[in-house]
Protein backbone atom coordinates (compact mmCIF):
# COMPACT_ATOMS: atom_id res chain seq x y z
CA UNK A 1 0.00 0.00 0.00
CA UNK A 2 1.49 3.36 -0.90
CA UNK A 3 2.04 5.51 2.16
CA UNK A 4 -0.06 8.67 2.33
CA UNK A 5 1.58 11.95 1.32
CA UNK A 6 3.35 13.94 4.01
CA UNK A 7 1.00 16.84 3.45
CA UNK A 8 -2.34 16.79 1.73
CA UNK A 9 -4.33 19.97 1.79
CA UNK A 10 -7.73 20.12 0.14
CA UNK A 11 -9.71 23.34 -0.14
CA UNK A 12 -8.59 24.61 3.22
CA UNK A 13 -10.16 27.90 4.24
CA UNK A 14 -9.49 30.19 7.15
CA UNK A 15 -11.13 33.52 7.79
CA UNK A 16 -10.15 36.24 10.25
CA UNK A 17 -12.92 38.80 10.52
CA UNK A 18 -13.46 39.70 6.89
CA UNK A 19 -10.01 38.65 5.69
CA UNK A 20 -9.82 35.36 3.83
CA UNK A 21 -6.39 34.34 5.06
CA UNK A 22 -6.79 30.99 3.29
CA UNK A 23 -9.30 30.89 0.47
CA UNK A 24 -9.29 27.27 -0.62
CA UNK A 25 -5.70 26.02 -0.61
CA UNK A 26 -4.73 22.81 -2.37
CA UNK A 27 -1.27 21.46 -1.84
CA UNK A 28 0.37 18.08 -1.72
CA UNK A 29 3.86 17.26 -0.47
CA UNK A 30 5.28 13.78 -0.91
CA UNK A 31 7.32 12.18 1.83
CA UNK A 32 10.97 13.23 1.56
CA UNK A 33 10.17 16.20 -0.64
CA UNK A 34 11.20 19.79 0.05
CA UNK A 35 8.58 22.33 -0.87
CA UNK A 36 9.06 26.06 -0.65
CA UNK A 37 5.93 28.07 0.01
CA UNK A 38 6.56 31.46 -1.48
CA UNK A 39 4.40 34.52 -1.07
CA UNK A 40 4.34 38.20 -0.20
CA UNK A 41 3.38 39.64 3.20
CA UNK A 42 -0.10 38.64 4.19
CA UNK A 43 -0.37 35.91 1.56
CA UNK A 44 -1.38 33.30 4.11
CA UNK A 45 1.89 31.39 4.57
CA UNK A 46 1.94 31.53 8.34
CA UNK A 47 -1.75 30.77 8.54
CA UNK A 48 -1.30 27.66 6.40
CA UNK A 49 1.66 26.47 8.45
CA UNK A 50 -0.25 27.01 11.68
CA UNK A 51 -3.20 25.06 10.37
CA UNK A 52 -0.89 22.20 9.35
CA UNK A 53 0.89 22.27 12.71
CA UNK A 54 -2.47 21.91 14.53
CA UNK A 55 -2.22 25.38 16.05
CA UNK A 56 -5.20 26.74 14.18
CA UNK A 57 -8.32 24.82 13.21
CA UNK A 58 -9.30 25.31 9.57
CA UNK A 59 -12.75 26.76 8.87
CA UNK A 60 -13.28 24.44 5.95
CA UNK A 61 -11.60 21.79 3.83
CA UNK A 62 -9.29 19.09 5.11
CA UNK A 63 -5.61 18.97 5.87
CA UNK A 64 -3.86 15.68 6.45
CA UNK A 65 -0.35 14.98 7.68
CA UNK A 66 0.74 11.46 6.76
CA UNK A 67 -2.93 10.65 6.43
CA UNK A 68 -3.82 12.07 9.87
CA UNK A 69 -6.42 14.81 10.00
CA UNK A 70 -5.00 17.92 11.68
CA UNK A 71 -8.34 18.87 13.18
CA UNK A 72 -9.41 15.49 14.48
CA UNK A 73 -6.10 13.71 15.12
CA UNK A 74 -4.03 16.60 16.43
CA UNK A 75 -2.20 14.63 19.15
CA UNK A 76 -1.04 12.03 16.63
CA UNK A 77 -0.04 14.73 14.16
CA UNK A 78 2.06 16.44 16.83
CA UNK A 79 4.10 13.28 17.24
CA UNK A 80 5.33 13.48 13.67
CA UNK A 81 6.01 17.16 13.14
CA UNK A 82 8.47 19.83 14.14
CA UNK A 83 7.68 23.50 13.84
CA UNK A 84 9.89 26.53 13.79
CA UNK A 85 7.50 29.41 13.55
CA UNK A 86 8.00 32.86 12.13
CA UNK A 87 8.53 34.29 15.60
CA UNK A 88 10.92 32.50 17.89
CA UNK A 89 9.02 30.30 20.31
CA UNK A 90 11.59 29.84 23.03
CA UNK A 91 11.38 30.72 26.67
CA UNK A 92 13.14 34.04 27.13
CA UNK A 93 13.87 33.63 30.82
CA UNK A 94 15.37 30.16 30.58
CA UNK A 95 18.87 29.53 29.31
CA UNK A 96 19.44 27.85 25.97
CA UNK A 97 20.26 24.59 27.71
CA UNK A 98 17.21 24.76 29.97
CA UNK A 99 15.00 25.46 26.98
CA UNK A 100 16.22 22.40 25.12
CA UNK A 101 15.98 20.16 28.18
CA UNK A 102 12.46 21.34 28.87
CA UNK A 103 11.31 20.77 25.32
CA UNK A 104 13.07 17.40 25.33
CA UNK A 105 11.11 16.35 28.39
CA UNK A 106 7.91 17.60 26.82
CA UNK A 107 8.73 15.50 23.75
CA UNK A 108 8.70 12.68 26.32
CA UNK A 109 12.36 11.83 26.21
CA UNK A 110 13.75 10.55 29.49
CA UNK A 111 15.57 13.10 31.63
CA UNK A 112 18.91 11.62 30.64
CA UNK A 113 18.08 11.57 26.92
CA UNK A 114 16.80 15.13 27.10
CA UNK A 115 20.04 16.31 28.69
CA UNK A 116 22.15 14.48 26.13
CA UNK A 117 20.17 15.75 23.17
CA UNK A 118 20.30 19.29 24.52
CA UNK A 119 24.09 19.16 24.71
CA UNK A 120 24.39 17.68 21.22
CA UNK A 121 22.15 20.30 19.68
CA UNK A 122 23.85 23.20 21.46
CA UNK A 123 27.10 21.96 20.02
CA UNK A 124 25.67 21.44 16.56
CA UNK A 125 24.04 24.86 16.41
CA UNK A 126 27.11 26.63 17.67
CA UNK A 127 25.42 27.79 20.86
CA UNK A 128 27.79 26.09 23.30
CA UNK A 129 29.32 29.36 24.48
CA UNK A 130 25.90 30.85 25.24
CA UNK A 131 24.25 27.69 26.54
CA UNK A 132 23.92 28.92 30.10
CA UNK A 133 22.76 32.41 29.34
CA UNK A 134 19.10 33.43 29.32
CA UNK A 135 17.65 33.25 25.81
CA UNK A 136 16.53 36.85 26.29
CA UNK A 137 20.15 37.90 25.85
CA UNK A 138 20.54 36.06 22.53
CA UNK A 139 20.88 37.86 19.22
CA UNK A 140 18.23 37.33 16.56
CA UNK A 141 20.31 34.73 14.78
CA UNK A 142 21.10 32.81 17.96
CA UNK A 143 17.46 32.82 18.93
CA UNK A 144 16.51 31.42 15.52
CA UNK A 145 19.09 28.68 15.88
CA UNK A 146 17.84 27.82 19.36
CA UNK A 147 14.30 27.82 18.01
CA UNK A 148 15.25 25.46 15.21
CA UNK A 149 17.16 23.22 17.62
CA UNK A 150 14.03 23.09 19.80
CA UNK A 151 12.07 21.48 16.98
CA UNK A 152 14.75 18.84 16.45
CA UNK A 153 14.96 17.24 19.88
CA UNK A 154 13.19 14.29 18.41
CA UNK A 155 13.72 14.07 14.70
CA UNK A 156 10.51 15.17 13.05
CA UNK A 157 9.27 13.23 10.07
CA UNK A 158 7.94 16.51 8.72
CA UNK A 159 9.43 19.87 9.57
CA UNK A 160 7.78 23.25 9.05
CA UNK A 161 10.04 26.26 8.84
CA UNK A 162 8.23 29.58 8.64
CA UNK A 163 10.61 32.17 7.15
CA UNK A 164 13.64 30.55 8.74
CA UNK A 165 16.16 33.08 7.49
CA UNK A 166 14.32 36.39 7.51
CA UNK A 167 16.48 38.98 9.20
CA UNK A 168 19.57 36.81 9.39
CA UNK A 169 23.05 37.73 8.20
CA UNK A 170 24.52 35.63 5.38
CA UNK A 171 26.55 33.49 7.74
CA UNK A 172 23.60 32.57 9.96
CA UNK A 173 21.49 32.04 6.87
CA UNK A 174 24.02 29.63 5.45
CA UNK A 175 24.15 27.80 8.75
CA UNK A 176 20.39 27.31 8.67
CA UNK A 177 20.51 26.23 5.04
CA UNK A 178 23.22 23.67 5.87
CA UNK A 179 21.21 22.22 8.69
CA UNK A 180 18.08 21.94 6.62
CA UNK A 181 20.01 20.25 3.82
CA UNK A 182 21.39 17.73 6.28
CA UNK A 183 17.94 17.02 7.63
CA UNK A 184 16.59 16.53 4.16
CA UNK A 185 19.48 14.23 3.28
CA UNK A 186 18.48 12.13 6.27
CA UNK A 187 14.92 11.86 4.99
CA UNK A 188 12.97 14.60 6.72
CA UNK A 189 10.19 16.12 4.67
CA UNK A 190 10.40 19.89 4.68
CA UNK A 191 7.85 22.61 4.07
CA UNK A 192 9.43 26.02 4.31
CA UNK A 193 7.95 29.41 3.71
CA UNK A 194 9.90 32.34 2.43
CA UNK A 195 9.53 35.68 0.74
CA UNK A 196 12.69 35.07 -1.27
CA UNK A 197 12.36 33.08 -4.45
CA UNK A 198 16.13 32.75 -4.37
CA UNK A 199 15.90 30.85 -1.11
CA UNK A 200 13.05 28.67 -2.29
CA UNK A 201 15.03 27.93 -5.44
CA UNK A 202 18.15 27.01 -3.45
CA UNK A 203 16.51 24.68 -0.98
CA UNK A 204 13.32 23.34 -2.45
CA UNK A 205 12.55 20.66 -5.00
CA UNK A 206 9.39 22.49 -5.81
CA UNK A 207 7.99 25.94 -5.21
CA UNK A 208 4.37 26.74 -4.50
CA UNK A 209 3.48 30.39 -4.85
CA UNK A 210 0.72 31.55 -2.54
CA UNK A 211 -1.12 34.84 -2.69
CA UNK A 212 -4.51 36.03 -1.44
CA UNK A 213 -4.81 32.73 0.37
CA UNK A 214 -4.60 30.49 -2.70
CA UNK A 215 -1.81 28.64 -4.43
CA UNK A 216 -1.41 30.48 -7.73
CA UNK A 217 1.52 28.60 -9.24
CA UNK A 218 3.64 25.53 -8.64
CA UNK A 219 6.86 24.29 -10.14
CA UNK A 220 10.64 24.62 -10.09
CA UNK A 221 12.28 28.02 -10.33
CA UNK A 222 12.85 27.45 -14.05
CA UNK A 223 9.28 26.37 -14.59
CA UNK A 224 8.11 29.58 -13.00
CA UNK A 225 10.48 31.67 -15.09
CA UNK A 226 9.18 30.05 -18.24
CA UNK A 227 5.66 30.43 -17.11
CA UNK A 228 5.65 34.15 -16.55
CA UNK A 229 6.65 34.98 -20.04
CA UNK A 230 9.98 33.57 -21.04
CA UNK A 231 11.76 36.81 -21.86
CA UNK A 232 11.74 40.46 -20.99
CA UNK A 233 12.42 43.41 -23.25
CA UNK A 234 14.35 45.82 -21.09
CA UNK A 235 14.28 49.47 -22.21
CA UNK A 236 16.41 52.31 -20.82
CA UNK A 237 14.85 55.64 -21.84
CA UNK A 238 16.88 58.78 -22.37
CA UNK A 239 14.46 60.84 -20.25
CA UNK A 240 12.40 59.57 -17.35
CA UNK A 241 9.43 61.75 -18.34
CA UNK A 242 8.82 59.53 -21.36
CA UNK A 243 8.14 56.48 -19.23
CA UNK A 244 4.39 57.03 -18.96
CA UNK A 245 3.95 57.67 -22.68
CA UNK A 246 6.07 54.64 -23.51
CA UNK A 247 4.04 52.41 -21.20
CA UNK A 248 0.81 53.56 -22.83
CA UNK A 249 2.23 53.01 -26.27
CA UNK A 250 3.55 49.49 -25.84
CA UNK A 251 1.17 46.70 -24.84
CA UNK A 252 2.09 45.04 -21.52
CA UNK A 253 4.86 47.52 -20.82
CA UNK A 254 5.36 48.36 -17.15
CA UNK A 255 7.48 50.79 -15.19
CA UNK A 256 10.23 49.53 -12.90
CA UNK A 257 11.88 50.83 -9.75
CA UNK A 258 14.23 52.80 -11.97
CA UNK A 259 12.16 55.72 -13.39
CA UNK A 260 14.07 55.60 -16.69
CA UNK A 261 13.59 51.92 -17.26
CA UNK A 262 10.51 50.13 -18.45
CA UNK A 263 10.12 46.44 -19.12
CA UNK A 264 7.91 44.40 -21.39
CA UNK A 265 7.43 40.71 -20.62
CA UNK A 266 7.19 38.84 -23.92
CA UNK A 267 6.62 35.34 -25.16
CA UNK A 268 9.90 33.45 -25.38
CA UNK A 269 9.13 32.04 -28.86
CA UNK A 270 8.50 35.45 -30.30
CA UNK A 271 11.12 37.33 -28.35
CA UNK A 272 12.98 38.77 -31.35
CA UNK A 273 9.80 39.80 -33.11
CA UNK A 274 8.60 41.48 -29.95
CA UNK A 275 11.90 43.25 -29.54
CA UNK A 276 11.73 44.72 -33.03
CA UNK A 277 8.05 45.70 -32.64
CA UNK A 278 8.79 47.47 -29.36
CA UNK A 279 11.82 49.30 -30.80
CA UNK A 280 9.83 50.23 -33.88
CA UNK A 281 6.96 51.64 -31.86
CA UNK A 282 9.27 53.72 -29.71
CA UNK A 283 11.27 55.14 -32.58
CA UNK A 284 8.08 55.89 -34.57
CA UNK A 285 6.79 57.87 -31.60
CA UNK A 286 10.08 59.70 -31.40
CA UNK A 287 10.93 58.54 -27.88
CA UNK A 288 14.71 58.60 -27.42
CA UNK A 289 16.13 55.37 -26.02
CA UNK A 290 19.53 54.67 -24.46
CA UNK A 291 19.48 50.93 -24.55
CA UNK A 292 17.15 48.11 -25.49
CA UNK A 293 17.85 44.47 -24.67
CA UNK A 294 16.35 41.05 -24.29
CA UNK A 295 16.84 38.98 -21.14
CA UNK A 296 15.37 36.27 -18.96
CA UNK A 297 13.24 37.58 -16.10
CA UNK A 298 14.94 37.54 -12.74
CA UNK A 299 13.44 35.40 -10.02
CA UNK A 300 12.30 38.53 -8.26
CA UNK A 301 10.42 39.63 -11.34
CA UNK A 302 8.77 36.25 -11.57
CA UNK A 303 7.67 36.59 -7.98
CA UNK A 304 6.35 40.09 -8.52
CA UNK A 305 4.55 39.06 -11.70
CA UNK A 306 2.88 36.11 -10.08
CA UNK A 307 1.83 37.84 -6.92
CA UNK A 308 0.52 40.93 -8.60
CA UNK A 309 2.81 43.28 -6.77
CA UNK A 310 4.51 44.68 -9.90
CA UNK A 311 4.71 48.46 -9.93
CA UNK A 312 2.58 49.15 -13.02
CA UNK A 313 -1.19 49.51 -12.86
CA UNK A 314 -2.67 46.23 -13.96
CA UNK A 315 0.76 45.05 -15.02
CA UNK A 316 0.52 41.76 -13.28
CA UNK A 317 -2.93 40.88 -14.48
CA UNK A 318 -1.68 41.04 -18.06
CA UNK A 319 0.63 38.10 -18.12
CA UNK A 320 1.40 37.83 -21.80
CA UNK A 321 -0.02 34.95 -23.81
CA UNK A 322 1.95 31.87 -23.22
CA UNK A 323 2.66 28.97 -25.52
CA UNK A 324 1.86 25.82 -23.63
CA UNK A 325 4.05 23.53 -25.79
CA UNK A 326 7.33 24.73 -24.42
CA UNK A 327 7.61 22.06 -21.76
CA UNK A 328 6.76 24.17 -18.76
CA UNK A 329 4.79 22.07 -16.34
CA UNK A 330 3.38 24.75 -14.17
CA UNK A 331 -0.18 25.82 -13.94
CA UNK A 332 -0.90 29.43 -13.28
CA UNK A 333 -4.23 30.33 -11.84
CA UNK A 334 -5.37 33.75 -10.86
CA UNK A 335 -7.02 34.23 -7.50
CA UNK A 336 -10.73 33.53 -7.89
CA UNK A 337 -12.05 36.73 -6.45
CA UNK A 338 -10.85 40.22 -5.87
CA UNK A 339 -8.77 42.32 -8.17
CA UNK A 340 -5.29 43.40 -7.34
CA UNK A 341 -6.69 46.76 -6.38
CA UNK A 342 -8.95 45.16 -3.81
CA UNK A 343 -6.06 43.27 -2.36
CA UNK A 344 -3.96 46.35 -1.97
CA UNK A 345 -6.74 48.16 -0.24
CA UNK A 346 -7.14 45.26 2.17
CA UNK A 347 -3.48 45.30 2.97
CA UNK A 348 -3.58 48.95 3.82
CA UNK A 349 -6.67 48.67 5.94
Amino acid at each position, binding site marked *: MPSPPAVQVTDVRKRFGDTDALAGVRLEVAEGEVVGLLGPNGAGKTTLVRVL*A*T*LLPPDGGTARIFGLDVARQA*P*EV*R*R*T*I*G*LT*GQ*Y*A*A*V*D*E*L*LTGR*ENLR*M*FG*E*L*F*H*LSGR*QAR*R*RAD*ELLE*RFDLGHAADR*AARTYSGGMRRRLDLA*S*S*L*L*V*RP*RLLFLDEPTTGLDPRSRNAIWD*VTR*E*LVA*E*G*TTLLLTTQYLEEADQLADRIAVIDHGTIIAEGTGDDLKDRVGGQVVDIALAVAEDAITACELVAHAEPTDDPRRIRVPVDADDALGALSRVSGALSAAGIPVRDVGLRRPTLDEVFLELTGAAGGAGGAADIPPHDSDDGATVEVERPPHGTDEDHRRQEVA
Partner: protein
Amino acid sequence: MSTLMTDPTAGDAAPAHTLAPPPPGGRLSTLYWGTRDTWTVTKRNLRHYVRQPRLLVFSTIQPVMFVVLFSFVFGGIAGDALPEGMTYIAFLLPGLFIHSAAFRSVQTAVGLAEDLERGVVDRFRSLPMSRSAVLAGRTLADLVRSLSVLLLMIVVGYAIGFRFTEGLLSALGAVAIVGLFGYLMSWLFTYLALLVPGAEAAQTAGFVLIFPLVFASSVFVPPETMPAWMAAFASASPLTHAADAARALSIGGEVAGPVLRTLAWSTGLLAVVIPLSVRRYRRIT
Protein backbone atom coordinates in the same frame (compact mmCIF):
# COMPACT_ATOMS: atom_id res chain seq x y z
CA MET B 1 31.40 15.31 11.13
CA SER B 2 28.75 13.88 13.33
CA THR B 3 25.36 13.61 11.83
CA LEU B 4 22.73 16.02 12.89
CA MET B 5 20.30 13.55 14.24
CA THR B 6 21.73 10.95 16.49
CA ASP B 7 18.83 8.85 17.46
CA PRO B 8 17.90 9.62 21.01
CA THR B 9 15.65 6.67 21.64
CA ALA B 10 16.80 3.61 19.78
CA GLY B 11 20.02 1.63 19.71
CA ASP B 12 21.98 0.55 16.63
CA ALA B 13 19.10 -0.29 14.34
CA ALA B 14 18.01 3.34 14.25
CA PRO B 15 14.94 3.79 12.11
CA ALA B 16 14.98 6.36 9.37
CA HIS B 17 12.79 8.54 11.48
CA THR B 18 12.75 8.83 15.17
CA LEU B 19 9.32 9.62 16.32
CA ALA B 20 8.21 10.67 19.72
CA PRO B 21 7.29 7.64 21.78
CA PRO B 22 4.16 5.85 20.66
CA PRO B 23 0.80 7.22 21.71
CA PRO B 24 0.24 6.48 25.34
CA GLY B 25 -2.04 3.56 25.84
CA GLY B 26 -4.66 3.71 28.52
CA ARG B 27 -5.46 5.96 31.39
CA LEU B 28 -2.48 5.08 33.52
CA SER B 29 0.00 6.24 30.97
CA THR B 30 -2.02 9.39 30.22
CA LEU B 31 -1.84 10.10 33.92
CA TYR B 32 1.88 9.36 33.97
CA TRP B 33 2.71 11.70 31.10
CA GLY B 34 0.29 14.32 32.35
CA THR B 35 2.04 14.32 35.72
CA ARG B 36 5.49 14.44 34.18
CA ASP B 37 4.57 17.26 31.80
CA THR B 38 3.02 19.16 34.69
CA TRP B 39 6.21 18.78 36.68
CA THR B 40 8.31 20.00 33.73
CA VAL B 41 6.13 23.08 33.34
CA THR B 42 6.16 23.65 37.11
CA LYS B 43 9.96 23.67 37.15
CA ARG B 44 9.94 26.18 34.35
CA ASN B 45 7.52 28.49 36.15
CA LEU B 46 9.48 28.28 39.39
CA ARG B 47 12.59 29.30 37.48
CA HIS B 48 10.66 32.25 36.13
CA TYR B 49 9.86 33.44 39.64
CA VAL B 50 13.45 33.48 40.76
CA ARG B 51 14.55 35.17 37.56
CA GLN B 52 12.05 38.00 37.72
CA PRO B 53 13.22 40.23 40.56
CA ARG B 54 10.12 42.37 40.21
CA LEU B 55 7.90 39.40 40.85
CA LEU B 56 10.06 38.09 43.64
CA VAL B 57 9.92 41.43 45.41
CA PHE B 58 6.21 41.76 44.85
CA SER B 59 5.41 38.33 46.17
CA THR B 60 7.74 38.26 49.19
CA ILE B 61 8.37 41.76 50.49
CA GLN B 62 4.79 42.84 50.10
CA PRO B 63 3.22 40.24 52.40
CA VAL B 64 5.96 40.81 54.96
CA MET B 65 5.29 44.54 54.87
CA PHE B 66 1.60 43.89 55.33
CA VAL B 67 2.21 41.75 58.38
CA VAL B 68 4.34 44.43 60.00
CA LEU B 69 2.36 47.49 58.92
CA PHE B 70 -1.13 46.19 59.53
CA SER B 71 -0.31 44.87 62.97
CA PHE B 72 1.38 48.08 64.10
CA VAL B 73 -0.93 50.55 62.39
CA PHE B 74 -4.30 48.96 63.18
CA GLY B 75 -3.27 47.03 66.25
CA GLY B 76 -4.15 49.92 68.56
CA ILE B 77 -7.71 50.44 67.44
CA ALA B 78 -8.53 46.89 66.32
CA GLY B 79 -7.65 45.50 69.73
CA ASP B 80 -10.92 46.84 71.19
CA ALA B 81 -13.01 44.71 68.84
CA LEU B 82 -11.20 41.52 69.76
CA PRO B 83 -12.01 39.06 72.55
CA GLU B 84 -10.32 39.71 75.88
CA GLY B 85 -6.64 38.94 75.89
CA MET B 86 -6.24 38.39 72.13
CA THR B 87 -3.52 40.46 70.48
CA TYR B 88 -4.18 41.90 67.04
CA ILE B 89 -1.21 40.09 65.48
CA ALA B 90 -2.66 36.77 66.71
CA PHE B 91 -5.96 37.63 65.07
CA LEU B 92 -4.43 39.26 62.01
CA LEU B 93 -1.79 36.83 60.84
CA PRO B 94 -4.08 33.90 59.91
CA GLY B 95 -6.28 36.43 58.11
CA LEU B 96 -3.27 37.78 56.27
CA PHE B 97 -2.44 34.25 55.13
CA ILE B 98 -5.75 34.28 53.32
CA HIS B 99 -5.31 37.88 52.18
CA SER B 100 -1.97 37.15 50.63
CA ALA B 101 -3.09 33.87 49.07
CA ALA B 102 -6.02 35.71 47.48
CA PHE B 103 -3.89 38.51 46.09
CA ARG B 104 -1.18 36.20 44.88
CA SER B 105 -3.68 34.35 42.78
CA VAL B 106 -3.95 37.50 40.66
CA GLN B 107 -0.35 36.74 39.74
CA THR B 108 -1.50 33.36 38.44
CA ALA B 109 -3.78 35.15 36.03
CA VAL B 110 -1.09 37.61 35.02
CA GLY B 111 1.53 34.91 34.53
CA LEU B 112 -0.80 32.80 32.43
CA ALA B 113 -1.97 35.77 30.39
CA GLU B 114 1.66 36.69 29.71
CA ASP B 115 2.39 33.14 28.68
CA LEU B 116 -0.52 33.17 26.26
CA GLU B 117 0.94 36.28 24.65
CA ARG B 118 4.39 34.72 24.44
CA GLY B 119 5.58 32.64 21.52
CA VAL B 120 6.57 29.77 23.75
CA VAL B 121 2.97 28.65 24.18
CA ASP B 122 2.89 28.00 20.43
CA ARG B 123 5.69 25.54 20.89
CA PHE B 124 3.99 23.91 23.86
CA ARG B 125 0.95 23.47 21.67
CA SER B 126 2.84 21.90 18.81
CA LEU B 127 4.47 19.37 21.15
CA PRO B 128 2.97 15.98 21.94
CA MET B 129 2.64 17.03 25.57
CA SER B 130 -0.43 16.98 27.78
CA ARG B 131 -2.35 20.14 27.12
CA SER B 132 -3.62 20.69 30.62
CA ALA B 133 -0.02 20.61 31.89
CA VAL B 134 0.37 24.28 31.03
CA LEU B 135 -2.42 25.12 33.46
CA ALA B 136 -1.63 22.48 36.06
CA GLY B 137 2.05 23.46 36.03
CA ARG B 138 1.16 27.10 36.50
CA THR B 139 -1.15 26.51 39.48
CA LEU B 140 1.24 24.01 41.06
CA ALA B 141 4.17 26.42 40.81
CA ASP B 142 1.98 29.09 42.36
CA LEU B 143 1.11 26.72 45.19
CA VAL B 144 4.81 26.14 45.88
CA ARG B 145 5.37 29.88 45.88
CA SER B 146 2.33 30.45 48.04
CA LEU B 147 3.59 28.00 50.65
CA SER B 148 7.04 29.55 50.73
CA VAL B 149 5.59 33.03 51.20
CA LEU B 150 3.41 31.60 53.96
CA LEU B 151 6.50 30.29 55.69
CA LEU B 152 8.13 33.69 55.43
CA MET B 153 5.07 35.36 56.93
CA ILE B 154 5.07 32.94 59.83
CA VAL B 155 8.71 33.70 60.56
CA VAL B 156 8.05 37.44 60.50
CA GLY B 157 4.91 36.96 62.59
CA TYR B 158 6.88 35.05 65.20
CA ALA B 159 9.35 37.92 65.37
CA ILE B 160 6.60 40.35 66.34
CA GLY B 161 4.74 38.21 68.81
CA PHE B 162 2.56 35.72 66.93
CA ARG B 163 2.42 32.14 68.25
CA PHE B 164 0.62 29.00 67.08
CA THR B 165 -1.13 27.86 70.24
CA GLU B 166 -2.86 24.68 69.12
CA GLY B 167 0.07 22.37 68.56
CA LEU B 168 2.06 21.31 65.52
CA LEU B 169 -0.66 19.27 63.86
CA SER B 170 -3.14 22.12 63.96
CA ALA B 171 -0.49 24.53 62.68
CA LEU B 172 0.15 22.22 59.74
CA GLY B 173 -3.59 22.02 59.28
CA ALA B 174 -3.72 25.81 59.05
CA VAL B 175 -0.99 25.77 56.42
CA ALA B 176 -2.88 23.08 54.50
CA ILE B 177 -6.13 25.06 54.59
CA VAL B 178 -4.38 28.18 53.35
CA GLY B 179 -2.65 26.13 50.63
CA LEU B 180 -5.94 24.61 49.50
CA PHE B 181 -7.66 27.97 49.50
CA GLY B 182 -4.78 29.53 47.54
CA TYR B 183 -4.85 26.66 45.07
CA LEU B 184 -8.56 27.17 44.49
CA MET B 185 -8.02 30.90 44.00
CA SER B 186 -5.24 30.16 41.49
CA TRP B 187 -7.57 28.02 39.43
CA LEU B 188 -10.34 30.62 39.58
CA PHE B 189 -7.90 33.18 38.27
CA THR B 190 -6.61 30.75 35.69
CA TYR B 191 -10.12 30.62 34.35
CA LEU B 192 -10.39 34.39 34.50
CA ALA B 193 -7.16 34.78 32.53
CA LEU B 194 -8.58 32.47 29.88
CA LEU B 195 -11.76 34.53 29.69
CA VAL B 196 -10.27 38.04 29.43
CA PRO B 197 -7.50 38.59 26.92
CA GLY B 198 -4.27 40.25 28.01
CA ALA B 199 -2.20 40.43 31.16
CA GLU B 200 -3.32 43.90 32.14
CA ALA B 201 -6.99 43.07 31.80
CA ALA B 202 -6.43 40.00 33.95
CA GLN B 203 -4.69 42.08 36.58
CA THR B 204 -7.37 44.76 36.66
CA ALA B 205 -10.22 42.28 36.76
CA GLY B 206 -8.38 40.41 39.49
CA PHE B 207 -7.93 43.38 41.77
CA VAL B 208 -11.46 44.60 41.26
CA LEU B 209 -12.76 41.22 42.35
CA ILE B 210 -10.33 40.57 45.16
CA PHE B 211 -10.44 43.87 47.03
CA PRO B 212 -14.08 43.82 48.15
CA LEU B 213 -13.94 40.08 48.83
CA VAL B 214 -10.93 40.38 51.09
CA PHE B 215 -12.09 43.44 53.00
CA ALA B 216 -15.68 42.30 53.39
CA SER B 217 -14.60 39.20 55.31
CA SER B 218 -13.10 38.23 58.63
CA VAL B 219 -9.58 38.67 57.25
CA PHE B 220 -8.85 41.97 59.02
CA VAL B 221 -11.59 42.44 61.59
CA PRO B 222 -14.43 40.34 63.02
CA PRO B 223 -17.52 40.80 60.80
CA GLU B 224 -19.60 41.73 63.85
CA THR B 225 -17.91 45.15 63.78
CA MET B 226 -19.25 45.87 60.27
CA PRO B 227 -22.60 47.38 59.24
CA ALA B 228 -25.28 44.70 59.27
CA TRP B 229 -25.58 44.24 55.50
CA MET B 230 -21.84 43.89 55.10
CA ALA B 231 -21.59 41.60 58.09
CA ALA B 232 -24.20 39.38 56.45
CA PHE B 233 -22.19 39.28 53.25
CA ALA B 234 -18.95 38.73 55.16
CA SER B 235 -20.21 35.83 57.24
CA ALA B 236 -21.38 34.03 54.11
CA SER B 237 -18.11 34.67 52.25
CA PRO B 238 -15.83 31.71 51.58
CA LEU B 239 -12.94 33.98 52.52
CA THR B 240 -14.40 34.31 56.00
CA HIS B 241 -14.70 30.55 56.30
CA ALA B 242 -11.12 30.11 55.16
CA ALA B 243 -9.81 32.84 57.45
CA ASP B 244 -11.82 31.48 60.38
CA ALA B 245 -10.54 27.98 59.71
CA ALA B 246 -6.93 29.13 59.50
CA ARG B 247 -7.41 31.24 62.62
CA ALA B 248 -9.03 28.48 64.67
CA LEU B 249 -6.26 26.06 63.73
CA SER B 250 -3.64 28.67 64.61
CA ILE B 251 -4.86 30.28 67.80
CA GLY B 252 -7.93 28.34 68.87
CA GLY B 253 -11.67 28.64 68.39
CA GLU B 254 -14.32 26.58 66.65
CA VAL B 255 -12.49 24.38 64.14
CA ALA B 256 -14.90 21.89 62.61
CA GLY B 257 -17.45 24.28 61.09
CA PRO B 258 -15.14 26.64 59.19
CA VAL B 259 -12.77 23.83 58.17
CA LEU B 260 -15.56 21.69 56.76
CA ARG B 261 -17.11 24.65 54.96
CA THR B 262 -13.74 25.60 53.48
CA LEU B 263 -13.09 22.02 52.37
CA ALA B 264 -16.54 21.83 50.81
CA TRP B 265 -16.24 25.18 49.03
CA SER B 266 -12.74 24.51 47.77
CA THR B 267 -13.14 20.98 46.53
CA GLY B 268 -16.55 21.75 45.07
CA LEU B 269 -15.33 24.77 43.16
CA LEU B 270 -12.12 23.05 42.07
CA ALA B 271 -14.17 20.20 40.63
CA VAL B 272 -15.97 22.75 38.48
CA VAL B 273 -13.29 25.26 37.62
CA ILE B 274 -10.52 22.82 36.64
CA PRO B 275 -12.48 21.11 33.86
CA LEU B 276 -13.89 24.47 32.77
CA SER B 277 -10.41 25.96 32.52
CA VAL B 278 -8.97 22.99 30.68
CA ARG B 279 -11.82 23.07 28.20
CA ARG B 280 -11.51 26.79 27.71
CA TYR B 281 -7.74 26.49 27.22
CA ARG B 282 -8.23 23.81 24.58
CA ARG B 283 -10.75 25.97 22.83
CA ILE B 284 -8.84 29.21 22.68
CA THR B 285 -5.45 27.73 21.84
